[in-house]
C-alpha cells in the first residue's frame, strides 16, 4: 500500500510535466498505430513490418538534414521551416514507398494464393528482418552479388544534427512547452485530422471502409480491392514516416536499424488499446498509452518504461480484448 502511495505522490509532483511528455509521445504512437489499425481493418492481419516502415523515416530525415542541406548548426526562420518540410516530405515518401513495396512483395503473392494467416505473419517477419539487416549491411563495405551497397546506414546508430534550437514557447501549469513539443503536437493533430477526413469523406476513404466491412461485397460493388489495399498501406506508411521524422526531432533519437522495434510494438499496443481496426480508437489508444508510460516513469523508474506498455497490452487483452472503442472495423 505504501508503495502505491509513494507512487501517487511521485506522479503528483511531476503531473503536468509527465502529462506533457505523455501527450507528445502518445501523438507519435497514435500516428504509427494508424498503420497497424488500417491494415488490420482491410486485411485482418498484423503488419509486422510496419516498425521497419517507421525506421526508414529516421534515415530519410538523416539524409535530408545531413546530406542534402549539410546542416551542422540549428537553423531559424524560413530556412528552418523549409528544412523541416523537406525532411518531412522525404520521410513520408520513403516510408510510404517501403510500405507499398512490402505489400507488393511480402503480402500480395500470399493473398493471391489464399494462404493461411500464419504464412502472412512469417512472411512479415521475414520482410522485417530483411529490411533491418539491409540497413545494417549498407555501410559501404558489403556487396550483394556484384552490386556494392551504398554507405547509407550501418550497424551503429547515427546521430542526426539538430535543426532546431530548443526554446520555451509557453508554459502551462508550471511545465514549459518547448518549440519541438509544440511542433510535434500541432503536426500530429493536423495529420490525424486530415487522415480522419480522408477516410470519412473521400471516395478512396469510402472504398477503404467498404473493404473493411466486407471485402467480397465491396468488390462486387465495383471497388478495386487491390487499389484500396495499396492505398491503405501507402497512407499507413506516410503516417509512420511523419511520425518517424517527429520522433527524431523531439527525442533527439538517432537513425538506427533497430529503432523501429519498440515504437512499433508500442504502437501496436495502442492500436489494440483503442480497438484494432478502429481509426479513432488508434488515436485515442496512442495518447492514452503515451500518458500511461509517462506516469509510470516517476512511479517505477525509467528502466521499467518499456515493460509498462507490454503489461498494458496484456491487461487490455485480458479484460477488454476488443479495446476501448471496440473493433468497429470500417466505421
Amino acid at each position: 500500500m505504501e508503495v502505491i502511495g509513494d507512487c501517487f505522490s511521485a506522479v503528483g509532483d511531476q503531473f503536468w510535466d509527465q502529462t506533457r511528455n505523455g501527450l507528445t509521445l502518445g501523438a507519435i504512437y497514435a500516428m504509427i498505430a494508424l498503420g497497424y489499425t488500417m491494415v488490420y481493418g482491410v486485411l485482418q492481419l498484423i503488419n509486422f513490418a510496419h516498425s521497419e516502415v517507421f525506421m526508414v523515416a529516421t534515415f530519410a530525415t538523416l539524409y535530408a538534414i545531413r546530406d542534402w542541406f549539410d546542416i551542422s548548426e540549428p537553423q531559424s526562420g524560413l530556412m528552418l521551416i523549409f528544412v523541416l518540410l523537406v525532411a518531412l516530405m522525404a520521410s513520408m515518401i520513403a516510408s510510404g514507398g517501403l510500405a507499398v513495396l512490402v505489400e507488393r512483395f511480402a503480402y500480395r503473392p500470399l493473398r493471391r494464393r489464399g494462404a493461411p494467416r500464419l504464412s502472412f505473419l512469417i512472411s512479415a517477419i521475414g520482410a522485417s528482418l530483411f529490411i533491418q539487416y539491409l540497413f545494417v549491411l549498407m555501410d559501404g563495405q558489403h556487396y550483394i552479388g556484384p552490386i556494392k551497397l551504398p554507405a547509407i546506414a550501418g550497424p551503429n546508430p547515427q546521430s542526426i544534427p539538430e535543426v532546431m534550437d530548443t526554446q520555451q514557447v509557453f508554459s502551462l501549469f508550471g511545465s514549459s512547452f518547448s518549440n519541438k513539443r509544440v511542433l510535434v503536437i500541432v503536426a500530429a493533430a493536423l495529420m490525424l485530422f486530415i487522415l480522419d477526413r480522408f477516410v470519412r469523406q473521400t471516395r478512396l476513404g469510402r472504398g477503404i471502409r467498404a473493404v473493411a466491412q466486407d471485402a467480397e461485397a465491396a468488390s462486387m460493388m465495383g471497388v478495386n480491392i487491390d487499389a484500396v489495399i495499396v492505398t491503405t498501406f501507402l497512407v499507413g506508411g506516410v503516417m509512420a514516416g511523419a511520425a518517424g521524422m517527429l520522433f527524431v526531432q523531439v527525442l533527439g533519437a538517432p537513425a538506427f536499424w533497430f529503432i523501429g522495434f519498440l515504437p512499433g510494438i508500442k504502437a501496436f499496443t495502442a492500436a489494440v488499446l483503442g480497438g484494432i481496426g478502429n481509426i479513432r480508437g488508434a488515436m485515442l489508444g496512442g495518447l492514452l498509452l503515451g500518458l500511461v508510460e509517462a506516469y509510470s516513469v516517476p512511479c517505477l523508474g525509467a528502466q521499467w518504461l518499456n515493460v509498462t506498455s507490454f503489461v498494458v497490452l496484456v491487461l487490455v487483452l485480458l479484460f477488454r480484448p476488443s479495446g476501448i472503442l471496440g473493433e468497429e472495423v470500417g466505421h
Partner: protein
Amino acid sequence: MARDDKPSASTQAQEPAETDARTLGRRMKDARREMAQRRGAFRDARVTAYGRVRQAAGRQLQPITKPLGVFREKIEENRKWAYPLIGILVIAAAALLPFLSEWFDLPDWARRATSGSALARVALFALFALGLNVVVGFAGLLDLGYVAFWLIGSYTAGILTGAHSYTQAIGGAGTAVEPTWSMWMWLIIPAALVAAVIAGVVLGSPTLRLRGDYLAIVTLGFGEILRITANNLDNITGGPRGVRGIPHPAITIGDINIEWGTLLDKKYYWLLLIFVVLWVIAIRMLDNSRIGRAWVAIREDEIAAAAMGVPVVRMKLAAFAIGACTAGVGGVIYAEQVNFINPPTFSIIQSILILAMVVVGGMGSIPGAILGAAAVVLLPEIFRGFEDYRFFVFGFVLVLLMIFRPQGLLPSKRRKAELKGHVVEEQLYAAGGG
C-alpha cells in the same frame, strides 16, 4: 478491364491519331490487356516446359528411383522393426560426426562444420527448434518470444548452482568460492523444466483464448519483458553483469567419472544429442496420439474443433507448455556449457532464428526441425565471411519460402496438404499418418 467491350488494338491503330484523353486512356487499357494476355501465354509456356523437363528427368532417373521406391515400400511394410533400426543407425551416425575430422582429411569448411562446438550448437538449436515446432508447427500458434523460456532455463541453472551468489560475491566484499558440480545438480534440469512450464502456463492462460495474431505480439512482448526484467532485477539475476562461473556438469557414480569441460568439449554434443533423441521420441508419440490429433484439428479450424469437443484452450496450453519445457531444458545445458549468461544473450533475434529453423525445415515436421537447425547454424559456419549476411538472407528466405514453398524443405505430409491449399480430400486421408 474485361468488363467493357472495347475495340481491339489493331482497329485502334488504323484510326487517325487523336490527342483526345479518352482515346488515350482506351489505348492504354488495350495495351495493358494485351500485356496481361502475353504474360499469361508466357506463364503457360513456362509451366508446360517445366512439366516436360520433369517428365524427361523422371524417365531418365527411373533406374534409380524404381528400386528406391521398392525399398521404401518394404520399409513401410515392416515399419515395426525397420523404423527403430533406421533410427538407431541415424543416431549412431550422428554420434560419430565429431570424429570425422580425426579419421579423414577433411577440407577446412567441413572441419569447422563437424567441430565439437559447432555440432553442440546444432544440437542445442535442434532441441529448441523441436520445442518451437510443437507450438508453431503442430498447434499453429505463432510464438515470437520463445527465447523467454530459454532465459528461464538458463537463469534457473545460474541461480540454483550457486553461480549467482558467487557472481554477487566477486562484485562486493567477501570470500568467493567458484561453485563446482555435484550430482544433485542434475536435478536442476527437471527444476528448470517445471519453471519453464509454469511460465508458459502463466503467459498462455490469459492469451491463448485470443486470436492467433495477438498471441504473436504478446509473446514478442513477453520475451522482451523477461529480458528487461533480468536486466533490472540486480539482486535476483545479477542485472547487466549477468551470472558467471556456472559449473560444467559431471557424472560421478562409483568408478565412473565423466566431466564436461569447456565450450569446445565434444561431450556437450553427445549430452545434447541424448536430449534431442529423447525429445524426438516423445514428440513423435505425442503427435500420433489423441493430443496430436487435437492439435491438428485446432490448427485447421478452431471453431470446428471446439464444436467436436476438443478442449481447445487446454490443448493449446499443452502445446505451449511442452514448447516451454524444451527451451527450459536446453537453457540449462546452454548455461552450463558457456558458463556465463547475461541478458543481451536472450534478445529477440534468437526467437526469430529458431522460428526460421522451424519454417525452413518445414512446420510440423520433426526431421525438418532438425535439418532447419543444422542449416541455420552450419551454413554461416561453412561460408565464413558471409556471417554478416546471415540475418539478411534468413529474412529473404522466410519471405520466399512463404511464397513458393510454405511447407518447408522436409514437409510433414499432413501439413503440406494444408499449407499448399487445394486439398483433395483423398490426399488428406492418405496423409493422415503425419
